Structure formats: structure tokens, C-alpha cells
């Protein structure tokens, strides 16, 4: 209680602790890894306790402190500090993803209409309980007794609580992502030590958001920032960013989060191109190129499965110059020569595992094959899956994509010739 105010300040303790930690955040001692770890560990623990205690005001107090690091150059200069900051954000997303611990059933079971005080409930649950109490008391005053059965009260609390929780989750997720984007946006060539960690953890946080079924934050501007981080990173760091981005693109495509999938695919493709240009070993260069191609094929495969509009256009740009010589690729596929390239086929098969399962689960239909009977094929509009069998995998998707790109190119060629013809005639007329 603030002695000069009549209003109880339930955040008094949190505010005092934050004041104390601020003496550390403002000092040079933060550059020492053990100090940074200790400070962020305090914040991470406090954030989790606040969230699980359903105290959004306390979460806000701590998050504001963490947000001070959104533009702090020390984070980009130190791998440890970047790790501590992004780990805290990751932990926060994990807590937010788990939701609040109090169920609607527990709130109804507390029978808040009988007693205005519900000390057994956490902070925010008490607010929801008081809303339910208001409704139940209205029933008692109007009808003389509680009319609504318990199951309907649970649904009612859920209807009140669900959107509130969702709004808070969206806010926290968006703010965590904004801290990452702010740091990546301020990256310069002189302070790159923390950049790979920032990029890698940004992608992991995004995947964690997806894992918990939360709404993805606004990803506008993410792709160029991650691509730049990939460009500034070297060695294993660059490879990590590339493979994390490719994995994220495939996972987001599986979840039909097409905006995110396209952004991360762009990062994976561009960082693959950068990595290939830096690579001296020809076989490694080939593997990097096919890593990109099979990632593109995976995103395209999910697009085919879900009949995403514009799926070919989204994938085709990476199966053409400067990424790929599509004619050479088509030649390799035509000669069934991919297996000779010593590619990590088992890894690629793992990438397509969930798509393979989804295709296997498609219903089948009988098709008159013109012979003496009927054959079975998958009941799906795409020819990619019609004859999908047990060996369906990466090659099928890549072949289908390349064939679709070539068909599209053939279809567009006459139109291109017409345009050129018009241009030539116009120029001749002008002479």
C-alpha cells in the first residue's frame, strides 16, 4: 500500500524489484555473461510466475523492462546477452502458449455468486469469477434461484475468458517478436557477435508460437532482416540460420501459414544462394542447392495438398535464375539422374515425412482404367497425389514442380512473343 494513496498497489513488490534490477541494466556489469544470465533468469522466472498467477499487470511491468533491450546495442555485440534476452522471450512464449492454469470449470466450482471473495483463484480468474457471479446473482434476484446449469456456466466463463486470454496472448507474442525485429533491424556490420543468436532464436520463437497454436504476429519485414543476418553470419552460424529458416518454412507450410512460409522460404532460398556462393567444395555446393530445391518442393507440395491459390508462382521463382537452371534440372529429372548426385536423401525423406502421411490419409476413389476393371487413386484434384504410393516423397514433389514450371513457361512463351512483336512494330513505326 502506498501510504499517500487509498488505492492498494498490488504491484508494489514487483515495481521495487524492477527498480533494483534497473541498477544492473544501466551498468557496464551487464556485459559480463554471468551477470546477464542472472538478470534475465530473474526476469524469465518472474514473467512465468506472473503469467501463471494470471497477473497481466505484473507481466506488463516486467515486459516493459525487457523491452528496454529492444534497441540496446550491447545485445548485438554479445552472443551471451543475445542468448539471455531471446531465451527470456522464448520462455515467455512458452508460458503464454500454455495458457492460464485456471480452468473455466475451476472458476465455476468456486461458486463466486455465494461469496464475493474468491481467494483461491488467481488474479485474472477472479475478474472472470466476478463476472459470472454478477450473472448468477441476477438470476437469483430475477427468478429466485440460479437457473443456469453448471455446464452452461462453464461455457459462459469460457466465452468471457477465451477472447480475453487470446487477446493477451496475441499482445505478448507481438511484443516479443517486435523486440527481435527491433534488434535485427539495428544490426550493422560492426556488431555481429549476437546476430546469429538473435536470428536463430527469432525463428525458433516463431515456431514455438506456431507449436502452441497461437496467432502468428505481424511478420512484415522479417524476411529481409533474417536474410541480412544470414549474410553477416559465417560458418556454422550461417548454416544454422539457413537450415532453421528452411525448417520453419516447411513447418509453416504444413500449418497453412502461407505468409510466414513464404517469408521463411525467401530467407532459406537467399541464405542458400549466399552459402553456395561462398562454398568452394562442389559437392557441398550441390547439396546446398538441392536443400533449397527440396525445401521449395516441400512448401509447394503442401500448397498442392491444400490447393493454395498462387502456389506455383510462390515456388517457381526459386526454380529459376538466379537460384536454379531449370532446364538443366529438368534434364537431370528426365534422365532419372538425381540419385547419382549423392544427395542426403534420408534427410530429405524426413522433411517430407508428414506430407507423406497426409497424402497416405487421403481417401481413395475407383477409376475406370479402360482395361478389364477399375484401379484406385487418391481422391484429390492434384495430379501430384493421384497415383501417390508408398514411395511418395521428395522426388515426386520436385518433379511435379519442375514440370508445372515448364508447362507454365510454355504457356507464357507465345504471349511473350506477341508482346515482343508489338514492341518491334511500334519501334519500326517510330523510325
Amino acid at each position: 500500500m502506498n501510504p499517500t494513496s487509498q488505492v492498494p498497489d498490488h504491484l508494489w513488490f514487483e515495481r521495487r524489484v524492477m527498480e533494483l534490477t534497473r541498477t544492473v541494466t544501466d551498468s557496464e556489469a551487464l556485459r559480463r555473461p554471468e551477470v546477464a544470465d542472472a538478470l534475465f533468469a530473474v526476469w524469465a522466472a518472474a514473467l512465468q510466475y506472473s503469467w501463471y498467477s494470471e497477473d497481466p499487470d505484473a507481466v506488463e511491468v516486467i515486459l516493459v523492462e525487457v523491452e528496454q533491450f529492444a534497441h540496446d546495442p550491447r545485445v548485438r555485440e554479445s552472443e551471451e546477452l543475445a542468448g539471455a534476452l531471446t531465451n527470456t522471450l522464448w520462455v515467455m512464449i512458452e508460458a503464454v502458449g500454455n495458457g492460464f492454469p485456471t480452468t473455466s470449470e475451476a472458476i465455476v466450482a468456486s461458486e463466486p455468486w455465494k461469496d464475493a471473495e474468491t481467494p483461491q483463484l488467481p488474479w485474472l480468474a477472479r475478474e472472470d469469477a466476478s463476472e459470472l457471479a454478477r450473472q448468477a446473482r441476477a438470476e437469483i434476484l430475477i427468478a429466485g434461484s440460479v437457473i443456469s446449469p453448471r455446464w452452461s456456466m462453464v461455457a459462459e466463463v469460457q466465452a468471457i475468458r477465451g477472447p480475453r486470454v487470446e487477446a493477451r496472448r496475441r499482445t505478448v507474442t507481438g511484443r516479443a517478436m517486435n523486440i527481435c525485429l527491433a534488434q535485427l533491424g539495428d544490426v550493422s556490420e560492426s556488431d555481429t557477435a549476437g546476430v546469429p543468436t538473435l536470428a536463430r532464436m527469432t525463428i525458433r520463437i516463431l515456431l514455438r508460437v506456431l507449436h502452441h497454436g497461437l496467432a502468428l504476429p505481424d511478420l512484415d519485414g522479417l524476411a529481409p532482416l533474417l536474410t541480412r543476418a544470414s549474410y553477416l553470419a559465417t560458418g556454422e552460424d550461417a548454416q544454422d540460420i539457413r537450415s532453421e529458416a528452411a525448417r520453419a518454412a516447411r513447418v509453416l507450410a504444413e500449418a497453412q501459414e502461407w505468409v510466414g512460409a513464404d517469408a521463411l522460404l525467401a530467407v532459406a532460398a537467399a541464405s542458400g544462394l549466399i552459402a553456395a556462393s561462398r562454398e568452394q567444395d562442389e559437392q557441398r555446393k550441390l547439396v546446398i542447392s538441392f536443400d533449397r530445391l527440396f525445401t521449395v518442393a516441400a512448401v509447394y507440395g503442401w500448397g498442392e495438398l491444400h490447393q493454395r491459390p498462387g502456389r506455383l508462382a510462390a515456388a517457381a521463382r526459386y526454380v529459376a535464375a538466379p537460384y536454379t537452371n531449370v532446364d538443366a534440372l529438368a534434364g537431370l529429372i528426365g534422365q532419372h539422374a538425381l540419385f547419382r548426385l549423392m544427395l542426403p536423401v534420408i534427410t530429405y525423406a524426413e522433411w517430407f515425412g508428414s506430407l507423406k502421411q497426409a497424402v497416405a490419409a487421403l481417401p481413395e476413389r475407383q477409376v475406370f482404367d479402360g482395361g478389364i476393371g477399375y484401379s484406385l487413386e487418391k481422391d484429390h484434384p492434384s495430379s501430384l497425389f493421384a497415383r501417390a504410393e508408398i514411395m511418395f516423397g521428395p522426388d515426386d514433389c520436385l518433379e511435379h514442380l519442375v514440370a508445372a514450371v515448364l508447362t507454365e513457361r510454355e504457356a507464357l512463351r507465345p504471349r511473350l512473343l506477341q508482346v515482343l512483336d508489338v514492341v518491334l512494330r511500334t519501334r519500326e513505326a517510330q523510325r
Partner: protein
Amino acid sequence: MSPRRARTFHLGDRYAAFSLRGADGLDASFAGTDVYVAARGVSNSVIPGVDEDELILTGANDIEVEQVTEVLLARYSQRDLWSQPTIAMELQSYVTQLIYHGEVFVRLHLDRADLKEPYSLFAMDWLAPETMLRRRRAGKVVYEQYVSLRAFEGSNYVIDGGPREHFAEFDEQEVLHLRWPLPEPGGARSPAAAALRAGRDIGRNAERMVLVAQAGAETKETFLSLARARAGAFSDALETEQIGSAKVKDMLFYPGAYEAPVFPWVEHATDYFLADRALRSRVAICQLRDYLFAAFNEQVLARWTQLNGWGEVELGLRRDVFSESDWLEMHEELRKGTIDLQDVRAAIAAESESR
């Protein structure tokens, strides 16, 4: 005084109501508007529509049905039977008056021009319920009407001349007597009377809200009521008033009336409660409708047809509406969770749009 020629006092006679201490006070009550709106909504739900076409007469003999139809439902019957423009609106006003007063008395004039002609209905006169007394005399039910008429001079209570006494007695067969048929609201002669009682709480809380506002405006005033208001004694006055208003509407069976979705009746309630109250009201509306037609058929049409030695003729709604059992079944579905508020509202809307 011949009862047959006696003057009857109808319900709109405010003087009779006042002189017999029957003033309902609804005009001055916070529940008054709710009673007016609810009575309108419920009566329009009991008898949906205002035209004669909404009703139909049925019976075994087509000629007899035709003769009754010409009197009750024909637009140009040359009989000035109703105080309202049509029989449908007349039945609606019966419901309205049942809500207001709990009882309706209407004097029937069943007569014939000569002995060769069949009996017919020539007039229906409203009798002010506050002037009526139902008595049992020599094993028979009779209805007495007593009015003491006083004419006032100017705006003061100065009686102009002596009071004129009116007394009339009617046979049971002469009177259509309707009573509020539902057990709710208990302990009151009519829903409006119960609402009036609950309206006092609304008024009290409205006054408390004024006190709260005044306590804020006059910060130095130390009068106890204002001091209490300033200390937060009446902080829940608005919510209590809102709930009081909702209680009044609920006891008037308003939530199920077809107008209810236009004027939300309660601020904070679960969807289940809203659906429950709407279904409760629809059940009550069906019970009211069943009672109204049964009473009219028994006390008007049966007497008329018996005088002529005719078969049974019955008045009813022409259109198909949900019955009491339909709504009860819906309530059971609601209880099981297989339907929800949206379904209940859709059913009510479907019924009102089926006109």
C-alpha cells in the same frame, strides 16, 4: 332498477377506478413503461396479428359455423360488438387487461329479433373489474356491479350534488369472466400488481442514484443521506435498478414476446438463462392463448349455440403456431445442451415471421 337496462361501467372509466380505490398507480411507477410494453408484446404474441383473418371458426355444421362467422369475423356484420376495431384486437385487449387487472368482465347480449329467428350476439360491453363482485346466491353464481358516482366541481374535492348510486346484477350466463390463469406471479391479483410492487424498489434505487449524483455535486453538504451516498452506500444503485427492471419484465413474461429482441431486457445474464426465460415466457403465452380460446368458446360460443340448439362451434387461431408441448420439448433440449439461445431466438422469430 332493471339489470338489463342498467348502465354498465367499462374499464376506461378512470373515475370509477378512482372512486373505488382501484387506482393502479402504474402511470407514476417506474414499472409503468415495462407493464405497458410487456402487455403489448405478450398480447400480440398470444394473438399474433390484428385482422379477423387471423382467426377461424370451426364446427360440425357448416351453416351454423357460417352464421357465427358472419357475426364474429365478417368485417361488415353491422354489429358494433367490439371496443377494438377487430375481434383479434379485442382478444389482445382481453390479454392486456388480464395483465393489468387480473380479471376481465364482459357483458354479453345474446338475443333474437323474434321467436322465429335464432339467437345471435348483439353486443359485448366491458364491465370495470373494480366495480364487479362475483357472488353465489341460492346456489347460483351472479355478478353484481356497484358504482357510486360523484361529480367534482373544479380542481378541488368539492362534491357537486349528492352521489348517484348505480347497482346492477347479471346472471352468470350474461357475463364473460376471465381470470389470470397462471400461477405466476404468486401473491398478486395480476402481473401488473406484482410489477407495481417490484417497481417501488426501482424507484428507491433511482432516488439513490440521484443522491449519489447530488453528493458528488454538493461536496460540503453533510445531510446524512448525502453523506452515506458519498461514502459509497448506494454504489450498486444502478445495477440494482437494472436488475429490478429486468425482474419486472420477467414477471410480466416479456422475454418471450416477439418484441423482446428489439429491447434487451437484462444487462448481465448467461445465454442459458436468457433462453430459459424466453422459453418460460413462450410456454406462458401458449397457456394464456389456450385459456383465452377455451374461455371464449365455453362462455360465449357454447352459450350462444346452446340457446339455438346448435352443435359445437369453436374459435381458434388460423395459423399454425408452436404449442405448449413444443416449447416444453425445446426447453428439455436446452437443458440437455442440444440447442442454445440462438436456436430459441430463431424459433421465436420463425413463429412471428410465419404470418
